[in-house]
């Protein structure tokens, strides 16, 4: 089976933006640019539309095929916070198969048994069952001794540790970031420094142990400063963020809007600006959806009783494209954040338009306008804080291993 995509704007995180064609043979990319199109190839005329690597969404909490398809996501790194927890090879293997045939699910196994932060999980066995990394899950490991063991053991297994950066001693029982909004609403809140405290400890441990550490979400100026400095020292650290933390501040929780109840909570405007600066200067490596769909039974509650989380897979690309339109980053850098870097962290050979790479591709019209509509969103639960927001950037086609999805 051969497919030729013709007359595309090719966007590759590695080689940049060019105009040309792309040939898929079987499930891999066979040629790029100008080449002779085989007579037996199916020809798809793109008329100048964008062809880019399909998105790799690092750290989702649910296998939501419809939302991923709508958002141009071909692979997800699945967080271990499932029921049951991904801490056993059988469960990991089942999770790895759960997206087939339309979505590659790459389990991120629990770093500790049941995510309780007490005992090491069987990282090597879980890796052999398909886990691509290990994570502390939604929570922080309180014991520094345990976190150090997680890091050294994961290093031995050649696995990245995906960490949640919030000091639980400060955030326990809270639902917001300390500041004017939380004070006015009377919400239990933790200081933003809870994030930097957790990052500082884990960075020191990673530096000392030489382990690879990825902070799934960093959202504060102090946190970015620590990561920036650590990267300069050569620490093997990476970090991510979600569009919500780039585009919204804690003001979005006014009127007790539970759709804006996230973990970590939305920060103040100065931290949001610091996040945008960190995207621009390369401190942030990954933009992920943080896809954590919650039904009305978890959201239609008083703010303090509601569960944190948002549906994000379907809007990840459109919201992120705004960064390109605003001139913050070029489009090839955006696809590094959305595809190449998360793939690298998970140890996956994908995320670029290289010959021999898997043909995980997305066709998009970056200028096509649409409106986010919580009621009509594809996939599970329409709990998005971006309801009714007009956006630009529509997925026209998604290919996984050369095969069209949807």
């Amino acid at each position: 089976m051969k497919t030729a995509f013709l007359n595309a704007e090719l966007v590759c995180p590695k080689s940049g933006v060019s105009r040309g064609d792309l040939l898929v043979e079987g499930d891999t990319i066979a040629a790029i640019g100008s080449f002779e199109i085989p007579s037996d190839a199916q020809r798809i005329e793109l008329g100048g539309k964008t062809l880019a690597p399909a998105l790799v969404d690092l750290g989702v909490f649910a296998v939501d095929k419809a939302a991923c398809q709508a958002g141009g996501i071909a692979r997800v790194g699945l967080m271990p916070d499932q029921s049951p927890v991904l801490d056993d090879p059988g469960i990991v293997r089942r999770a790895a198969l759960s997206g087939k045939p339309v979505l590659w699910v790459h389990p991120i196994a629990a770093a500790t048994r049941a995510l309780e932060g007490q005992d090491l999980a069987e990282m090597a066995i879980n890796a052999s069952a398909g886990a691509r990394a290990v994570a502390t899950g939604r929570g922080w490991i309180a014991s520094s001794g345990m976190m150090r063991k997680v890091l050294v053991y994961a290093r031995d297994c050649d696995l990245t540790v995906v960490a949640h950066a919030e000091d639980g001693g400060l955030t326990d029982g809270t639902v917001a970031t300390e500041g004017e909004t939380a004070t006015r609403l009377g919400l239990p809140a933790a200081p933003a420094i809870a994030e930097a405290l957790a990052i500082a400890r884990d960075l020191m441990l990673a530096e000392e142990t030489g382990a690879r550490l990825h902070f799934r979400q960093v959202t504060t100026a102090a946190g970015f400063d620590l990561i920036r400095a650590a990267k300069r020292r050569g620490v093997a650290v990476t970090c991510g963020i979600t569009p919500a933390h780039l585009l919204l501040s804690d003001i979005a929780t006014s009127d007790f809007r539970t759709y804006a109840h996230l973990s970590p909570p939305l920060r103040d405007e100065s931290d949001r600006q610091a996040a945008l600066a960190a995207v621009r200067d390369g401190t942030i490596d990954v933009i992920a959806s943080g896809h954590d769909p919650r039904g009305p039974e978890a959201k239609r509650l008083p703010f303090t009783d509601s569960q944190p989380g948002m549906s994000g897979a379907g809007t990840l690309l459109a919201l992120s494209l705004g960064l390109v339109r605003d001139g913050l980053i070029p489009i090839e850098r955006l696809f590094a954040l959305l595809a190449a870097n998360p793939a690298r962290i998970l140890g996956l050979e994908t995320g670029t338009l290289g010959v021999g790479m898997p043909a995980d591709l997305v066709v998009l019209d970056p200028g096509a306008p649409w409106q986010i509509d919580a009621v009509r969103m594809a996939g599970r639960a329409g709990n998005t804080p971006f309801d009714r927001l007009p956006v630009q950037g529509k997925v026209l086609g998604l290919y996984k291993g050369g095969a069209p999805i949807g």
Partner: protein
Amino acid sequence: MHASDHSPAAQLPGRAAFPHRHLTGIAGLQPHEIIFLLDEAEQWVEVNRTRAKSDKRLEGITQINAFFENSTRTLLSFEIAGKRLGADVVNMQVGQSSVKKGETLLDTAATLNAMRSDVIVIRHGSSGAVALIADKVDCPVLNAGDGWHEHPTQALLDALTIRRRRGSVAGQRVVICGDILHSRVARSNMLALTALAAEVRVVAPSTLMPAAIERMYVTPFTDFDAALEGADVVMMLRVQNERMSGGYIPSTREFHMRYGLTPERLSRAAPDALVMHPGPMNRGVEIDSSVADDPERSAITEQVEMGVAVRMACLDVLTRASRGVEGWA
């Protein structure tokens, strides 16, 4: 009386004087709307002091007091207020019924709505719970306290007490002392008193002081003595037992040493300063009995009296549209 505290609202016709469907908080109210409610309450103070207290204007109206959190005095105050206006008052101690069987708050709201109540008074332990219910029911909703968020009728009764005793709220230096962080009374009072142009100082140990409090146009203090200088009103808050002993403050006696209102401490305030407390009091902790019981200084029982008048006013005003009162439909 201070001119700015009275009258402008009275000149607005009907609904324009108070255009809100619910009273979920002081936030969102204009100063003239607060003054309107205080002026309305003022009439009920006089009525309540006569022997014939009853008024039948809410006859045929069903008032449900849905209290998801324990309360004695607020519940009683709303019950008396409703009954004095002739309403059929039903008290629901929701905390002990359906919620324990797993019913969600919105299910309870739907149930209340289906019972065709004319006004619902709600107390709930979670901030924002009252606003959530208000969105889902067809009748006016009155917030009787939600979590750490707001307790608007308490702020109104406090403002009314201050206005009556001091002649005006505007220009008064009001010191609010105690657990500011967890206090809905403090939040609503900060909003109401600053809206009425009082100078508000809040006092608490830093462990009980919310972040960015100065953005609510109040001045934070950790030193009670410094805050008391020249105070016209000293409003003490109850320190809840669960905040004691190592959690937020080391001990009751240490709290009393730093933040207890004693006669000596009160001497730093203006000679005729008013002492207030929303109750129930921890005597010997946040306030000495000799201060609490001083008839010259303490307005604590008067606050309770004003509470009934304010709640009568709120119930009356919020049901005017449904009762077809001229200019309010």
